[in-house]
């Protein structure tokens, strides 16, 4: 396998940190400040795209900054999965920033500079996770992400925000310190290595009990993936402003959680070990399958639109974990593809929720009868986003679900097929009636929505961009599949 020694991955990570500094300095001039963000995002995207051809050609970019512990360094490696995840995070950073401008400025929100500053740091951390070559580097950026998003979650600084923030940190820091960290140290103590490698790091004959314990510690330790019962932080974090929920809690933060789990399952345990040790694979699948169904059921009961989306996210994250847990080629490919597909779908939905709130101040689904006729653009985008999350054509979600379903049939866990289908039905059940009522039923007496109108351009345009993205992903899914294929090729031997 070819590796290219290059500093570019580090530059990609640093661009948004540098942008963060500029944002802090330019706080007094909002326009200049935000142009900085766009410039940084464009540079970052450009750099990422420049890495793509070689990665799709099967090469890896590597760079070790320094050694931190014997045999474990602060090191970066860009493979197809990491690059895909970084591309998704960075490309969605742009519409979210436009949306933030449209959302925060008219409401005269305070501390916008702080908001954009920590946002940029969070993006850096997410890309850092994506490019980590070993578990320690990943852990460093994982923690940086938890800490840098705390000020975003508590942005409103009222009692609810403080409470949500407290929950956020308790879950994320608590699990990572109490479970993921010791698991990582035990792996290091056992094997002397933390590098992500095809086939994992464990020697043959490692006791299954130890493996099971470590697996569970990792699955729950990366609580950003919101596996039940460590999911409650996600609905709690919905007190954050809409753009934060959109980018961080549909894309960056939660995807970093599942990304970490994918890395651990493929690079530390190894797909072969997973496939050959039924107990390991079953644990992953059962935990994820349970979360998937239960979260979808809870989502049905939520009236607040953001908490419904939050529970939907919890379920969708488990799709990805379940896909990897199947330990088959198409399962892992489907899981990989589900990262961008769900990201685009869910960010559209979250941005729409923000736009609806801005248009008429409504937060609850039961208030929104007939709203579709007042804000048709926003609601159409919402419809497309929900199609993507449910997994219906012509949106990207269909493609990833296709592979996931195929993967479940090829594996030893055929029941997962039923779980996927049931959950898709539940997804449809919690999104489509809402869309139907928004367009076709008449407004209730209390809420006539006479004054409601489409929100300002800066809010609507990003919503439409991401909705369009959902559709485009369907038609260009072949390109994305190349990434998934390269990743599978690298980590699945059979």
């Amino acid at each position, binding site marked *: 396998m070819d590796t290219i020694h290059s500093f570019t991955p580090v530059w990609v990570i640093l661009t948004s940190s540098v942008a963060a500094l500029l944002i802090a300095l330019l706080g007094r001039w909002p326009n200049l400040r935000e142009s900085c963000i766009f410039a940084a995002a464009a540079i970052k995207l450009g750099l990422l795209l420049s890495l793509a051809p070689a990665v799709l050609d099967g090469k890896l970019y590597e760079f070790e900054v*320094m*050694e*931190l*512990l*014997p045999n474990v360094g*602060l090191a970066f490696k860009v493979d197809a999965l990491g690059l895909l995840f970084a591309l998704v995070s960075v490309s969605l950073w742009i519409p979210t920033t436009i949306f933030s401008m449209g959302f925060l400025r008219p409401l*005269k929100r*305070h*501390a916008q500079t702080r908001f954009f500053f920590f946002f940029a740091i969070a993006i850096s951390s997410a890309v850092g996770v994506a490019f980590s070559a070993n578990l*320690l580097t990943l*852990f*460093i950026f994982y*923690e940086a992400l938890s*800490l840098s998003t*705390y000020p975003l979650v*508590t942005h409103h*600084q009222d009692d609810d*925000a*403080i409470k949500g*923030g*407290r929950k956020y*940190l*308790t879950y994320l*820091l*608590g699990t990572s*310190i*109490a479970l993921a*960290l*010791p698991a990582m*140290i*035990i792996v*290091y*103590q056992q094997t002397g290595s933390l590098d992500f490698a095809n086939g994992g790091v464990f020697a043959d004959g490692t006791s299954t009990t130890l493996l099971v314990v470590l697996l569970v510690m990792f699955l729950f330790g990366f609580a950003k993936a919101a596996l039940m019962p460590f999911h409650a932080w996600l609905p709690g974090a919905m007190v954050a402003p809409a753009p934060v929920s959109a980018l961080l809690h549909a894309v960056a933060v939660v995807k970093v959680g599942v990304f970490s789990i994918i890395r651990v399952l493929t690079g530390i345990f190894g797909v072969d070990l997973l496939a050959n040790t039924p107990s390991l694979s079953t644990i992953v699948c059962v935990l994820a399958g349970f979360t998937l169904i239960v979260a979808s059921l809870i989502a049905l009961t939520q009236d607040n639109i953001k908490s419904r989306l939050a529970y939907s996210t919890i379920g969708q994250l488990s799709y990805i974990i379940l896909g990897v847990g199947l330990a088959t080629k198409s399962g892992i490919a489907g899981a990989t593809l589900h990262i961008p597909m769900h990201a685009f779908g869910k960010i559209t939905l979250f941005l729409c929720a923000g736009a609806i709130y801005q248009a008429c101040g409504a937060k609850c689904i039961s208030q929104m009868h007939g709203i579709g006729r007042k804000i048709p653009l926003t609601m159409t985008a919402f419809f497309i986003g929900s199609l993507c999350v449910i997994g219906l054509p012509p949106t990207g979600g269909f493609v990833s679900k296709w592979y996931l379903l195929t993967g479940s049939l090829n594996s030893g866990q055929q029941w997962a097929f039923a779980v996927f289908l049931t959950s898709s039905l539940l997804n449809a059940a919690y999104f489509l009636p809402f869309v139907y009522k928004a367009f076709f039923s008449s407004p209730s007496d209390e809420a006539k929505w006479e004054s409601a109108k489409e929100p300002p351009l800066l809010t609507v345009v990003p919503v439409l961009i991401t909705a369009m993205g959902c559709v485009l992903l369907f038609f260009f899914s072949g390109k994305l599949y190349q990434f998934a294929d390269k990743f599978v090729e690298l980590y699945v031997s059979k």
Partner: protein
Amino acid sequence: MTVQLPIVIILGPLLGAVLAAFTGWFRPRLSHPLVVIGLAISFAAALKLVFIVADAGAQKYWLGGWGPKQGHGVVGIQITVDYLNTLLLAAVSGIALLTSVYTRRLVDTELAGRQRYFYALFSLLVTGLLGITITGDIFNLYVFMEIAALSSYALIAYGRGRAYMAAFNYLIMGTMGACLYLLGVGFIFAKSGTLNIDDVSAIIPALRQSQALFVGFVLILLGAWAKMAFFPFHGWLPNAYAHAPTASAAILAPLATKVAVYTMLRIMFTVYSIDYIIHSPGIQSLALYLSSLAIVIASFFSLTQTNLKKLASYFVLSEIGYMVGGAWLANKPGLTGAMVHVVADAAMTSALFMAIGCIVYRLGQAQLDDLKGVFFKMPVTMAAFVVTMAALIGVPPTCGFFSKWYLIQGAAQAGVWHFIAALLLSSLVKAIILFRIIEIGYNRVPHPAIEGNPAIPRNEAPLSMLIPTVAMSLGLIALGLATNTLVNTIIANAVPTALTQ
């Protein structure tokens, strides 16, 4: 010239102390600069020695040239700079130097009119601590221990209110510790006929069965534990540090206990040996349980504290559990972790008390409830505070993360799961406390940037305090990134060879 460097380390602060006390009679303003100069010389020498030791191994120095003579026993006192103590020497003198700069404004307000006594005692304390660390003679170590202890009693008693009582408690406990230590030294001397560490360690393996040596070992261990406020001898410490003047706490908290831990390491691994430790398994498991208990209990107490200084004192207590536990794991990663943590914790505690000192200087007190809005008043100080707390929690890439890594790795290797649980619990508790402080200091005030809310004027600590504080907290990150290099070049060589095979 470099041959004389080891003694320069002690002479700097010793002369500084004498001159500060002497010039204080007619030129009180000279005391502070004299002490700073003495410490700077000491730090320069210690730093140079780190490089020399890393290249060439241990440096030995005979006081007054009274080396061993053919046919006679050792009479003179030897001082040694080797892999085990060179980093600590640099840390102690470096932290003392920064703290001496840092404390000037604090002392001017807290101890107006008594500055020269304070600085003389300060410098004498540092002399004692450096002496304990550098000496190669177990009786000489006792002498320096008393020098350090007597000056710290006085430094604590300078505080207001209950400081006298706290200092008295400390005096009782400290004297007991010193007595136990001295008794232990007596046992060793009676059996081996020498006080020189190199000689004693050469003789001890032949006397492994000796009950007297074992009693001596236990006595010294208890003495060191009392000195370092290890559970259950910890009662004196929180009050002593909380009621002491902030300037005294800033120098005592980071250094005094760490040097006592070093004493324990020195006795365990170079006077006695790793064999000796492994073959006294009763003590080993006792020490490990006590370490876990120390960490857990100190963590719980820290949760209930309402005063920032006292809170920080409980942190000191729990960190002692880390180091003692790491040492008694008696394996390579555990011992590495303990040695890294001695240096890392000295730096972290120093940064913590410096940040608290800045807060106390401006707010006049350090009750948690008084911290409302402190992030707006003192943003730079609080940034340093957050970095320091992150290091104490063990967030990578600060030094606290790496020492904890080695400790947990050692505990996993030895299968001491309760120690891992205690370490993780302590991290979590510190995280809770950090975010409690962030909530009080940042979120519990109407945000000044929102229209209509009152502005909170900035009121940072003076630069002479702020710069050392920020430097120290940035140093925590630098130290973290340098951990691997330090371990490879120095600390790995201090681990007894029996463990590295």
